[in-house]
């Protein structure tokens, strides 16, 4: 079975490293690269055509919810999961789901939780 491409969007190098490792070691997914903010995510979604995007909310420049709003209009196929320290803020969680996010993963996250949610998509 072909591995699903996952684009990582986070301004933090260390979070990108953690997620890239989880993705590459999973056997089911392959990294489609790392964007550092929402604007880069929109560009890389066009150039890399990932099946899944794991995206932070709180980033400099274009934030994750703004990018999600744009992506949900531009690309109906891509599945976006928000990976954020703000996951526990009810309003942010709800806004992300209403804008089309498939799920929200709170930081700090466990490898098993990330893979379970990505495999359920």
């Amino acid at each position, binding site marked *: 079975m072909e591995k699903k491409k996952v684009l990582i969007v986070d301004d933090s190098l260390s979070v990108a*490293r953690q997620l890239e490792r989880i993705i590459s070691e999973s056997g089911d997914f392959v990294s489609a690269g790392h964007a550092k903010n929402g604007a880069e995510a929109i560009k890389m979604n066009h150039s890399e055509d990932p099946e899944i995007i794991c995206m932070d909310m709180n980033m400099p420049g274009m934030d994750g919810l703004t990018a999600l709003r744009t992506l949900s209009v531009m690309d109906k196929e891509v599945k976006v999961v928000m990976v954020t*320290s703000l996951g526990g803020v009810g309003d942010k969680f709800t806004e992300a789901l209403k804008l089309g996010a498939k*799920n929200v993963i*709170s930081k700090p996250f466990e490898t098993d939780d990330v893979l379970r949610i990505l495999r359920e998509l």
Partner: protein
Amino acid sequence: MAVKFFGQFLVEKNIVTRDALLRAIDLQDQNNLKLGEMAVSMGYLTAADIQRAHNAQMSKDMKLGDLLVEMNILTISQLNDVITRQKNTHLYIGEALIQVGALTSDNLQQHLIDFRADQSPYVSEGIELPCSIANSNIWEMTADLTYKMITRVLDLQFRPGKCEQLTIINTNFMMAAMDFSGDVEARYLISVSELLQKKIARAILREESVECEPPEVLEDTVMEFVNVVCGNVAAKASQMGVIININPPVAIRPSVEGLKVPAGHTGFIFPIHAGDGEKMQMILLIKN
């Protein structure tokens, strides 16, 4: 492993679907009227009164209820009536999920027990500030949650020192900061020695050794730790009815003289004594 609200917990555990949660939230939105809407529904004021108060809010940093009283649109007694009605008719997410058919009354109770157990590591314990300040419960919770995250995320043995008020922040190898806005305004800082920065990096990157990592990656791990703590503080604050917005974290390399607490701010330092005499501090600069 993070601070969550009940609906999120249920979706994460596959107990309810994302769509069921959204239906329940829609039901809450229809049922749980905002203060102005409730006051209108009770016949205390008109939509035009609310618009007048919203316009006044642009130049006055006051909550709508207080402003309505100050503008003589609502009496204190009416405001209390409205707040009581809001509380008495509030539809909680668990009840909303029952109403949309996603849960039953019986399994709601069990899921609430499981949720409380999941969140028990984040129940606040007593931390006292050295002087009184507005929203002290939020700042005490912030310190408490920082300690809990040092244990759970960094797996670091430490002893918290006594919180003190300060005017100068002594220098350290590196600091990471995050600004809070919303119902409170403050800057949250973590300052670390070089050795502790490496310990944080090992924990965040989940690597045995970080000796070959470039300085920007090591700094980034401290910033990410601050991001995780502050995001969870915002989540906990929202459960306490206080809105905290956070900005992306920044790295600071202080000069040897340290940093002065800015005018109009109160500074608190929470020393964190890690092993080997290594120095770590949590600092809050709270706008007065």
